[in-house]
């Protein structure tokens, strides 16, 4: 069966520090991968999605970036965090072969920038 791992679960980082959040998927190949951010009182904002290795689409211009170095690995990064980067970050995957994109989510990372 397919599983998705996201870590760390919680993270407290000072303003200006770098960020690296990792997400890996097991039990499937060529998944579509997504990074969402959920800010307090707001919905899920799609940040990045990827349909293949090295293929990254950015939805919102900001100081975050994403990379997909391997088929089932998706990394969210920042060189210098801002206070506004605080939030709940969710990684998700969906089947790369179907258009009915039911997504499966990780447990999330709660990032607090101080």
């Amino acid at each position, binding site marked *: 069966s397919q599983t998705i791992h*996201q870590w760390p679960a919680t993270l407290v980082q000072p303003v200006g520090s770098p960020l690296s959040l990792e997400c890996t998927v097991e039990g499937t190949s060529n998944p579509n991968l*997504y990074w*969402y951010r959920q800010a307090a009182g*707001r*919905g899920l904002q799609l940040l990045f999605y990827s349909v293949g290795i090295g293929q990254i689409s950015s939805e919102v211009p900001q100081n975050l970036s994403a990379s997909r170095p391997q088929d089932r690995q998706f990394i969210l990064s920042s060189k210098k965090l801002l206070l506004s980067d605080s939030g709940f970050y969710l990684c998700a995957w969906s089947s790369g072969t179907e*258009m*009915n994109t*039911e997504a499966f*989510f990780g*447990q999330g990372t709660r990032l607090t920038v101080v």
Partner: protein
Amino acid sequence: AQSVTQLDSQVPVFEEAPVELRCNYSSSVSVYLFWYVQYPNQGLQLLLKYLSGSTLVKGINGFEAEFNKSQTSFHLRKPSVHISDTAEYFCAVSDHSSYKLIFGSGTRLLVRP
């Protein structure tokens, strides 16, 4: 581009009462529609989805939703809620040509005894 509107940010309801959570979408092409539930500090879990065919879709935990193309709506309903249904509910849309999944702002369902 698609968008999703969930007009109610919070819906309080008493246990065993019926509930409807509203969702309207905007898209220029045919869409797939989803409802997800999120319990505190967790990821999202799929409740149900509409892909095609019957406009009434049944999901897990006794929830159902009805797709109304003319009103561009996909409202979620449950005839009798439980305390354990307290959670945040998200409506989402994707289209037939994109792998993007766009979510609404969420509705917090608060079930009171």
